[in-house]
């Protein structure tokens, strides 16, 4: 059972969270994005076997959406951060 380190509340049991999927996706710029870019954003995934940056919603806790880097093969979690903050070793969103 996963123990997810909420950057606000500390390590909490998986049952307090809802999974939110790939956190590397950025919603395209509505002014300029092509149809292909939108389709890629909505449908295509890297789906890596290994470290995966992903969103979790601490729905039963502080209700923050957080980012977690978790290995999809071992389930080990190596970093977590607030949704708008970079994960350790990752550049922040512009």
């Amino acid at each position: 059972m996963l123990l997810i380190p909420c950057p606000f509340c500390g390590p909490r049991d998986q049952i307090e969270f809802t999974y939110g999927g790939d956190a590397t996706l950025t919603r395209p710029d509505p002014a300029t994005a092509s149809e292909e870019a939108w389709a890629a954003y909505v449908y295509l995934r890297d789906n890596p076997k290994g470290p995966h940056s992903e969103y979790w919603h601490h729905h039963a806790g502080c209700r923050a959406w957080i980012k977690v880097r978790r290995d999809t093969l071992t389930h080990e979690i190596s970093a977590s951060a607030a949704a708008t903050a970079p994960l350790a070793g990752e550049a922040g969103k512009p």
Partner: protein
Amino acid sequence: MVERRSALEGAARPGDFGTPAAGGPGVILGERRSLAIVQVAALGERDAAVRGGIAAGCGVAPAAEASRAARGGGTAVLWSGPGRWLVVAAEQPGSDLAARLEAALATAPAVVTDLGHARTVLRVSGPSARDLLAKGCPLDLHLRTFPVDACAHSLLGHAGTLIHAVDAVPSFDLYLARSYARSAWEWIEESAAEYGCRVVAPADLTGSG
């Protein structure tokens, strides 16, 4: 003030039940009624002004850290998420807590939301209180990791709850969503029976707010 009808009206009857230990009931259970509960949400990162406004509005400044409550004069300010606090105080005729906070935060980047009727608040106390809560709550409520005035949103069975450690008896206040209160109460009653449980009337609850 017009009397409020609790979600537990008719469900929570004072009395003892279950199998008490030699020293008496392991769990003492009661509802805290007539509470004003107001959420203050800071907009954006700069929440110093919001903290100041809360202190001005209710007389208690929020604790500096997350997952902590600050108390004074019957008012508690509970951390409830990043940039969010719940201010809790006994309702007083002629004094609207939400309005006072609104006024104090009028210029601060904050949103004040009245949740006074949205939560049912239970106090669970006694030597077996932790064992009881452990049946439904994944938090580690040991005094080392969850000292007095720790507070955290978590689960109690299927119901979301904000848990506040009130004293070292131990006693915990549970803030439950009103619509879940009755189911949660039934769950607690069943789960507490093995320790012996005393249900007390709201007026008989002791301890600081």
